[in-house]
């Protein structure tokens, strides 16, 4: 398996902690962590396998660090790139926009030719609306540390097991 680029903000708190858990689920050397806040187009495009940490901010927005990198992504050819996305959300506080950022990011990546993997069931969550929903699945792993923190470890483990199968 080629190396996986795990992109997230090193200044984040919960998203960074989940990144650490994810790394532990892989063998040493399988994953390279990269700070999205200072990364470049060259670094980003150099991978074939990706995990992106994309939490939802405010009422369904991308965090500023991802927003600022979008103009780069929007012009990339991501054909043959395998990308899995995870992100934090709050289903109680923001039920109308739960995990929206994952959906926004997934749609953008797919437009650029990427294959988004690691869909998860919406069962076990209670929310009103989410741009991350595709049928009865989220197009990534949505974690709710505010309301379901005790489920996070198990969800991460199961998800990583699944996405390992997609990476080449």
């Amino acid at each position, binding site marked *: 398996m080629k190396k996986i680029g795990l992109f997230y903000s090193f200044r984040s708190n919960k998203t960074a902690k989940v990144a650490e858990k994810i790394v532990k689920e892989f063998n040493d050397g399988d994953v390279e962590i990269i700070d999205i806040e200072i990364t470049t187009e060259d670094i980003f495009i150099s991978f074939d396998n990706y995990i992106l940490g994309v939490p939802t*901010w*405010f*009422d369904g*927005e991308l965090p*500023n660090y991802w*927003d*600022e990198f979008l*103009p780069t992504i929007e012009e990339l050819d991501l054909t043959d790139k395998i990308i899995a996305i995870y992100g934090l959300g709050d289903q109680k506080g923001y039920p109308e*926009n739960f995990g929206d950022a994952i959906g926004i990011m997934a749609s953008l990546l797919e437009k650029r030719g990427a294959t988004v993997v690691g869909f998860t069931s919406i069962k076990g969550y209670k929310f009103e609306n989410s741009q991350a929903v595709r049928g009865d699945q989220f197009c990534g792993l949505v974690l709710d540390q505010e309301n379901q923190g005790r489920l996070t470890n198990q969800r991460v483990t199961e998800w990583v097991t699944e996405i390992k199968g997609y990476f080449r």
Partner: protein
Amino acid sequence: MVIPKKHSIKTTDKKILEKWYHLLKLGRTIDDKAPNYLKQAIGWSYHAPYAGHDGIQLAIGQVFDKKHDHLFPYYRDMLTNLSAGLTAEELILNGISKADDVASGGRHMSNHFGKPEFNIHNVSSATGNHTLHAAGVARAIKYYRAKGVAISSQGESSVSEGYVYEAINGASREKLPVIFVIQDNGYGISVPKKDQTANRKVANNFKGFKNLRIIHCNGKDVFESMNAMLEAKRHVLENGEPVIVQANCVRMHSHSNSDRHELYRNESELGYVSEYDPLNKFRRMLIRYKRLTAEELDVIDDKVKGVVKRAHKKAISAADPDPKSITNFVFAEEHTPKVFIDGLHDHKGEKFKLVEALNKTLKEEFRDNPDTFIWGQDMANKDKGGIFNVSKGMQQEFGEERVFNAPIAEDYILGTANGMSRYDDKIRIVVEGAEFADYFWPAMEQYVDTSHDFWRSNGKFSPNITIRLASGGYIGGGMYHSQNIEGALTALPGVRIVYPSYADDAAGLLRTSMRSKGLTLFLEPKALYNAPVAATSIPDDFEVPFGKARIRKSGNDLTILTYGNTTHMCVDVALKLEEEASVSIEVIDLRSLIPLDRGTILKSVKKTGKVLIVHEDNVFSGFGAELSATIMEDGFEYLDGPVRRLGAPFTPIGFNRILEKATLPNTDKIYEEVKKLIAY
């Protein structure tokens, strides 16, 4: 619908990016500096920082075209104003309330920016009520087939106000060219938006409205905000229908300098709202995408420092407002009759009922002035013209664009009149403020706002409006159909209030109102609309000046001051007592309550020495209290007895005729009071 990406960090011209960065940096520098003026006791005691709204405010100002558009910014819109054309000096002059403040000359609260010369309107502190004005001016833009839009801006919490619903409903119904911008920072002072409405995105409350497009954008992002506002304007201009733009922002600081947000926001929240500082984000992107270097940006930063320094120096040494000027611009210029100087005539001819006089005068003025409009509830539908037929036949003659029904929304009726009159000083608007005067209360916030618009704008904007209201009792209408409201309304400066009793005065005062600038409240005694006693002949082009009472019967022993329905009763009593007891009573029909004809009143008091005041409204705090106090202050030495008042007791009015009769004055009650006072 997709928002075209006309602007992006990679494609927008460098010169434009430089200009935007300059505006963003300049605005933020003043925003950050504003609290220092208060700390130094110089002024700016109200400052609502805009930091966190940078993207959308820059975009509103950039999209605004001062030649064709009308902008209604709210109190947090400092950058909007700067981006729309105000200078740094003008912002500071407003902040520290100097005489040269272009918005109001220091009369209105700080941080309420505006510049009427640029069609940037100075708005009320009653947040969001300018949505009605935006709808009104948009009605004018549409009527005159002009190319432009009205842009109204407000916070998300003020959307809870009922008048915002009225404005958006009206704009949707009338298909008016308005962009309603909602700047959502999540709080109304300390109140989180979950306490305002169920939808977190309040714009979605309006999803069911027809003829209305809703656009959401990231108000913290310059490019997304620009693209959203450009698309909104394109949509309005091409489709002739309103758009709501909801811009998600963050409030990086407290609501204002009297608020402490650390009392209700935790450190984590304060951290992440600061994290998304839109100005820092824009700067990072300019450097990241190699559009401007850090050095180039530093040069702009230095320039900004210089601009602010110079603006501060000029503003701080500018003149303060003159305390002697406080009574300037309370009332806009009134029309002065040239022929009927005192509003009197000896014309003999066909008699007209009061309702006919009003109808005839309205039609004559509409024929004479093409920039006249009238609307209200139940105003025009085929052969029906108003609940009392005052506007009968007008829509047929002048068309649906000048004479039309309004929704049952009194605040919208008056608020859009205020807004429409902002379009051009030549416009004259008549509204039936409500079907009955006592239904007018929902419009009170617009009434108050409109009453002080001329003063607040330092004489730059006069709402040229006549509010007609069918007033008073004697029809068995009870509450909401028979009450008088003038006692409460005369307490507000800035409105002329007239209350005719006869057809000729009704015609003359209405004509004068419609030819004047400013706001006139025209109260019509509905019980007299068709009463033969109020019918008179009316000379052509008859005008009655404001502030001229009319002596309906002269006398020497006692003065009765009255107006409206009770004038006729007082004249009857005077004639009866003259015949019965040779008592000579002078009946003065005030006609105008504001301005008041103090000269005629005091002259009569000097002659008779005794005064009875008669009106329908409550005695307690009724207008008679002001009349009595005026006489006590300026005519005390002429008095031979107490100034007495006769009116309604301090109670609402009952529907049953027995109750109504017990409440309102009548000839018997007046007769008894006069006799008592004569005998004193």
